[in-house]
């Protein structure tokens, strides 16, 4: 196969290949397991029923939406009570309701957020309580 301007074109193809396969070589082929969430905080361990505000699969996908609803309810409407789908009533509060159980922000929140590249704006306003840091 005779190529014309072969040098330049091959160089171009190599650049293209390097760019197009960036994810393959950037991680050097190491498989990375997704973060294993730590649910073993003292408060959770003491729970009889290990239940979040809403069922876990829903929370995994939609917690950011729920938190936005909570924020609006608390800050804009002054409503601090939330009735879950199963009828339980929770106090709307990130730091005292959510973080009471999930008192391991680094292990629980951050690992997933970092993994997925999410940059939640929670901590722009909220102070991270000393015990969950």
């Amino acid at each position, binding site marked *: 196969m005779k190529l014309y301007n072969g040098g330049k074109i091959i160089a171009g193809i190599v650049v293209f290949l390097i760019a197009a396969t960036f994810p393959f070589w950037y*991680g050097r082929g190491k498989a990375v397991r997704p973060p294993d969430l730590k649910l073993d905080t003292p408060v959770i361990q003491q729970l009889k029923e290990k239940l979040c505000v809403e069922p876990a699969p829903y929370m995994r996908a939609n917690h950011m939406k729920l938190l936005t609803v909570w924020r609006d309810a608390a800050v804009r409407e002054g409503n601090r009570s939330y009735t879950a789908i199963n009828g339980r009533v929770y106090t709307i509060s990130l730091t005292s309701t959510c973080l009471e159980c999930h008192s391991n922000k680094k292990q629980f929140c951050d690992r997933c957020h970092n993994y997925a590249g999410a940059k939640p704006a929670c901590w722009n306003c909220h102070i991270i309580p000393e015990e969950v840091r």
Partner: protein
Amino acid sequence: MKNLGISIIAVVILLMLPIGAAAAEWYSLLTVALPYGALTVFLLGFIYRVLLWAQSPVPFRITTTCGQEKSLPWIRTNSLESPSGLFGVIGRMALEILLFRSLFRNTGAEILEKRPVYGSAKWLWLFGLLLHWSLLFILLRHLRFFVEPIAPFINALSAFDGLFETGVPTLYLSDLVFLTAATALFLRRVVLVRVRYFSLPQDYFPLLLLLCTAGSGILMRHFTKVNLIKVKELATGWVSFSPVIQEGIGPLFSIHLFLVCTLLVWFPLSKLMHMGGIFLSPTRNLANDNRMRRHLNPWDAPVRVHTYEEYEDEFRDKMKTAGLPVERE
């Protein structure tokens, strides 16, 4: 309109395939075999097409000159539109590839009061440029699903893209821009009679495909949420060659993934190859240094010419009568 119809039918079929595959629980096909296959076709196909072009030589230096040539020292050369050297060519190509320089020149001609009038028509340029740049942003942002830890530039790009922090999760500007631009280009093709007249099914098809892909992606981000951890597990599985078969990330994800794979396969088979082709365009990537440096034609061969001897043999008498010098009496 028939050509548009063909494209729409093709896309509808493509939308149903992944739903069917998910229903049939062909998850290994959908989430492992198909992505690997599509990427392979894309990479090998792309390279094959480029090598095919590379096998044809550029026999003549046929630069389209869009500015003053380099000639006399006191005449200012336009080194970007009529480059005489390597740097000028690089500049010209960069302008072309990054900013769509030639398309920027676009005008619209119409006859007004019995004379042609040329109006500025930058819409095609604007939407074309926005489409390509937003697509690049979107592609780079998606790298967050493929690499761990996420490279800082990817996070920075996402932060920039979500600058206005509208909604949770943040609305990416590139998504909005992409949808707008692709819709505008699609409508242009459908609405403008002239453009519709020469549009082929394969002209509507990639735009529809891109719109559906982007649409499914945006739905997943903002409306029907999916578990991103699973998505990332799948994607990092691919790139580390230890794929994890994922079940039930959701029908939208199946569609999204399937359409992306379709696009990857379609790419080297179609006009989308303009991405590689523009680098090789001989009217743009050659310097206008024709009379300075000799360009070689690899297939140059002798041709039948009419030599001076033959000419003089035919006209010798007439030349002598006219008093013109001759080689042989």
